[in-house]
C-alpha cells in the first residue's frame, strides 16, 4: 500500500475514526492489526518474517536484561543481532555476494551461477532490521529497559507509518508513547493533516513528476546528449529528496493522527553548507543510527585524527552498502566517506566549528552561505550518479558524455524543466528552514487563507494521483 495511492488515504479515513471510537487501552491492538493489514497488502507471506523478527528482539531483550553474567548477556546480544543480520544478509545481499564471487571465479574459468537464487526482497527489511539492532544494543548497553509486554515489541517493529521506509525509530522514543496509551491532542491532529498534505505534494507533484523523466533518461542514456544527462542527474537529485522527504512527512503525519510522534528524518539537507552538515540533515534517523552503532563503536573521534577520518570513511562505506546490494552503492558510500573525511580535516585545520544553522549577518555572510550551499549541492548531486546508475556501464556512458560533449536537442527545455522542479523544492525547503517547521502551512493566518492554500495543494495532488499511476518510493527497494 503506497502512501501516494488512494487506497492508503481510504485506509487512513477508515482507521482514524475507528481509532477514536476504540477505548484507549485497546488502541494499540487496533493499530497492530492495522499495521499487519497494511504490510500484508503488499505480500502476506512476509508478515511471518516481520512477526518473527519482532519476537526475536522481544525474547533476546528479556534474556539480555535477565542475565547477570556479562558473557551470557553478550552471547544473547550476538545471537539476536546475528539472526537479524543473517536474515537481512540472505534476502538483500546473498545474490550480490554470489555474483561478486562468481565474477572472481570466472577469471579462472569457473562459475558459481548455480548458487544464484530467485529471492524477493521483503519491503522494509533494512529498516525493521536496523530497528531491531538498535533495540537489542540499547538493552544490552543498559540504556533502555527491555519490553516485558510482547505487544510493545511487536508494535515498535511494525507500526505501519514507519514500516516501509522508516524513520528508523529508537525504542526510547517510540515505546514510552505506546506504554502511555495513545490519545492524540488537537495539535497533533492538525499537524498530522498538514504534514500529510505537504508530504503528498512533495512526493507526488515534485517527486513523482520529476522521477518519471529521470527513469526515462537513465533507462535510455545512450539516446540523450550531455546537457540532457546532466539535467537528468540534477532532476534525480530533486526526485530522491522530495520522494523520501515527502514519504517521511506523510509517515509522521499519519502517526500524529493516532497520537504518535515520530522522529524528524529530514531538515532541509540541500541547504547544508558542507557535506558533513548535509549528513546531519539527510535521513537523520539513519545517520544517527550509523553514528551510534557503527562510528562510535569503531572508536569515533576518540582515537586521534587519522583514526577519525578512517572511521568516518568506514561508516560511510557501510552506509553505501546498506542502501543497496551493488558495487555502485559501495562506491557511493566511499565517495561520501572521502567527502566527510576531507571536510573533517578542513574543519580540524581551520579550528572552527560551524554553527548548526545559518542566520543572516550581512551580505558577505549571505554570499558565503550561498556559495557553500551551492558547492555542497553540486558535490551531493555528482555523487547521485553512483546512487542512480543501475551499473557501471551507465556510469561509463555518463562520464563518456561529459568527456566527449554530445550536443542536446532539448537541453535548454530540460534545463527549464529542471529549474522549475528545483525552485519548487527549494521554495518549500526555505520556508521550512526559516519557520523550523515541516508543517509550515499551520502558521498561515487567517484560517480561511490557510485552508485555501492547503485545499489547492491537496486538490492538485489528488488529480495527479488519479491520472497517473503511483510511482513507488525510491527507498522501498532498500
Amino acid at each position, binding site marked *: *500500500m503506497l502512501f501516494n495511492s*488512494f487506497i492508503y488515504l481510504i485506509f487512513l479515513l477508515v482507521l482514524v475514526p475507528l481509532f477514536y471510537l476504540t477505548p484507549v487501552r485497546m488502541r494499540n491492538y487496533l493499530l497492530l492489526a492495522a499495521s499487519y493489514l497494511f504490510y500484508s497488502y503488499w505480500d502476506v507471506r512476509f508478515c511471518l518474517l516481520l512477526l518473527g523478527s519482532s519476537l526475536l528482539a522481544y525474547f533476546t531483550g528479556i534474556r539480555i536484561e535477565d542475565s547477570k553474567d556479562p558473557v551470557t548477556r553478550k552471547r544473547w546480544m550476538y545471537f539476536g543481532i546475528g539472526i537479524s543480520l543473517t536474515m537481512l544478509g540472505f534476502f538483500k545481499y546473498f545474490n550480490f555476494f554470489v555474483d561478486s564471487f562468481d565474477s572472481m571465479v570466472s577469471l579462472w574459468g569457473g562459475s558459481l551461477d548455480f548458487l544464484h537464487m530467485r529471492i524477493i526482497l521483503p519491503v522494509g527489511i533494512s529498516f525493521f532490521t536496523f530497528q531491531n539492532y538498535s533495540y537489542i544494543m540499547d538493552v544490552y548497553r543498559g540504556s533502555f529497559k527491555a519490553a516485558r509486554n510482547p505487544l510493545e515489541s511487536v508494535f515498535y517493529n511494525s507500526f505501519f507509518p514507519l514500516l516501509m521506509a522508516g524513520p528508523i525509530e529508537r525504542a526510547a522514543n517510540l515505546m514510552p508513547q505506546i506504554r502511555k496509551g495513545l490519545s492524540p491532542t488537537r495539535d497533533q491532529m492538525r499537524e498530522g493533516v498538514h504534514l500529510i498534505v505537504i508530504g503528498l505534494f512533495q512526493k507526488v*507533484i515534485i517527486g513523482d*513528476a520529476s522521477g*518519471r523523466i529521470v527513469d526515462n533518461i537513465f533507462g*535510455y542514456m545512450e539516446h540523450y546528449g550531455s546537457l540532457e544527462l546532466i539535467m537528468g542527474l540534477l532532476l534525480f537529485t530533486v526526485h530522491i529528496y522530495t520522494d523520501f522527504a515527502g514519504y517521511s512527512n506523510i509517515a509522521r503525519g499519519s502517526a500524529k493522527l493516532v497520537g504518535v510522534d515520530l522522529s524528524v528524518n529530514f531538515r532541509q539537507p540541500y541547504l547544508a553548507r558542507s557535506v558533513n552538515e548535509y549528513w546531519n540533515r539527510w535521513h537523520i534517523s539513519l545517520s544517527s543510527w550509523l553514528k551510534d552503532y557503527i562510528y562510535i563503536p569503531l572508536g569515533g573521534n576518540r582515537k586521534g585524527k587519522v583514526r577519525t577520518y578512517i572511521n568516518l570513511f568506514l561508516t560511510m562505506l557501510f552506509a553505501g552498502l546498506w542502501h543497496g546490494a551493488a558495487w555502485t552503492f559501495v562506491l557511493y558510500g566511499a565517495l561520501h566517506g572521502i567527502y566527510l573525511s576531507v571536510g573533517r580535516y578542513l574543519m580540524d585545520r581551520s579550528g572552527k566549528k560551524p554553527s548548526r544553522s545559518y542566520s543572516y549577518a550581512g551580505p558577505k555572510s549571505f554570499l558565503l552561505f550561498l556559495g557553500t550551499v551551492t558547492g555542497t549541492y553540486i558535490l551531493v548531486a555528482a555523487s547521485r550518479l553512483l546512487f542512480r546508475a543501475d551499473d557501471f556501464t551507465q556510469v561509463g556512458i555518463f562520464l563518456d558524455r561529459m568527456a566527449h560533449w554530445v550536443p542536446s536537442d*532539448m537541453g535548454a527545455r530540460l534545463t527549464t524543466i529542471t529549474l522549475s522542479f528545483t525552485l519548487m523544492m527549494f521554495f518549500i525547503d526555505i520556508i521550512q528552514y526559516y519557520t523550523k517547521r515541516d508543517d509550515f502551512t499551520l502558521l498561515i493566518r487567517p484560517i480561511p*487563507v490557510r485552508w*485555501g492554500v492547503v485545499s489547492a495543494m491537496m486538490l492538485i495532488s489528488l488529480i495527479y494521483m488519479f*491520472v497517473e499511476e503511483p510511482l513507488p518510493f525510491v527507498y522501498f527497494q532498500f
Partner: protein
Amino acid sequence: MSILRSSVLFLLTFLGCLLVLELYVSSAEIDLSYHELNPVIGKKMLPNKRIVMLKEGFYLGQTNEYGYLGPAYPKEKPDSVFRIALMGNSYAEGFQLWEKYHFSRILERELSARTGKTVQLLNFGSGNLNFHDMYIYYRNWAKEFNPDLVLYVVKSENMKERTSYFIPSPYFYLDPDSALQVNYDFTGKSVYQTYDRFSFLMENSVLVKMSQNAYKLAQKGRAPQILFDKLYDSYAASKQKKDELEKDPEAEIKDLKLTAVTEAIFDEMSAEGKTLFVCRDAAPAFPEELLRARGIPMVFVNDTLHDLKAAGIDPYLWKSTGRKGHWNYEGNEAVGHFLAEKLAPLVP
C-alpha cells in the same frame, strides 16, 4: 469573521494558489495542453505548442506553426521536392520517444540520402484516430499541403467504425447517391458548445487538461480501480488493465467487417492514386483483397519486427517503465529503415 468574509477569503486564496500551481505545472511540464476541438476535423493539435508525454517512454517536442509534427513545411511545394504526408494514430504520432528517433524522421533522412532528392515528411499523426478520422484529417487538412504520397499507418482494428465518440468529431456518411460526405453535426452539440465557450481555458490551462483526463478515466469506468486498487475485485477491470499492459500489439482482429463507407473511402483513395498503406498486422486480417482490387499498394512491417524479435529484441518493450506498447527505439529504427527501402523506388 463572518462566514461570507471567510468564504471569500478562502475562495480567493484557493484560486490564487491554483494559478501559482498552474504556472509551476506548466513550466515544469508535468503536463501540457495542446489540443483544440476543430470544427472541420475534430480533435487537432494547436500550432506552436509544447508537448510532453510520459507514458511508456518520454516525448518532449512541439507542433510547428501549421499544427502538425516535425519541421514546418509550408503548403506550397517546390517541384524539386518529394513530399510525403503521414497519417495515423499514436504510432504515427510517436509520443513515446524524441522525434529524431521516430521512424518518420529516420524515413525522411534515409529516403533523401538514398534517392538524392529532397524528401519532406509531414507528420499528421494523432492519437486515438481511427481510419475514418485519418481520412477526414487528410481530406480536410493534410491535402492542402500537396503531398506526392500519403502513408496511412493502420491496423485492422483501426478499420472498425466508431460507435461512440468521447470527443465529438465529424464523421463520414453516404448520401442517397452513394457519395462520401462528412457530417459536422457535432459542432451543434453541447460538448462542442461548452468547449467553444471555454476554449481559452481548455487550450491553455494544464490543470483543466488534467481534470479533463481524470474525467475521461472516470467515464471509462476506471475510477473504482484507481480508488480501491487491489480491493476492487471486478474481474472485468483487472482483466482490462492486464490486457492493456500485456496485450499483444500484433493480435489480429477476426471477422473484420468493413462498411460501405470504408469501401467508398478506398474508392476515393484509388482514384487519387497517392495512397500507400503501412500495415501493422499480418496479411489475412488486413483488408488486403479490397485494397489490391483497387490498386492501392501496401507494405507490411511485421516481418521486420519479427526479425528484431528473433534477434532477442522486443520492439514493443519499454525497459524504463517495463511496459509493452508502441514501437520502442529499436522498433522505430527498424520500421524507418524498412520503409525507406520500400519507398525509395516510389520517389521519382
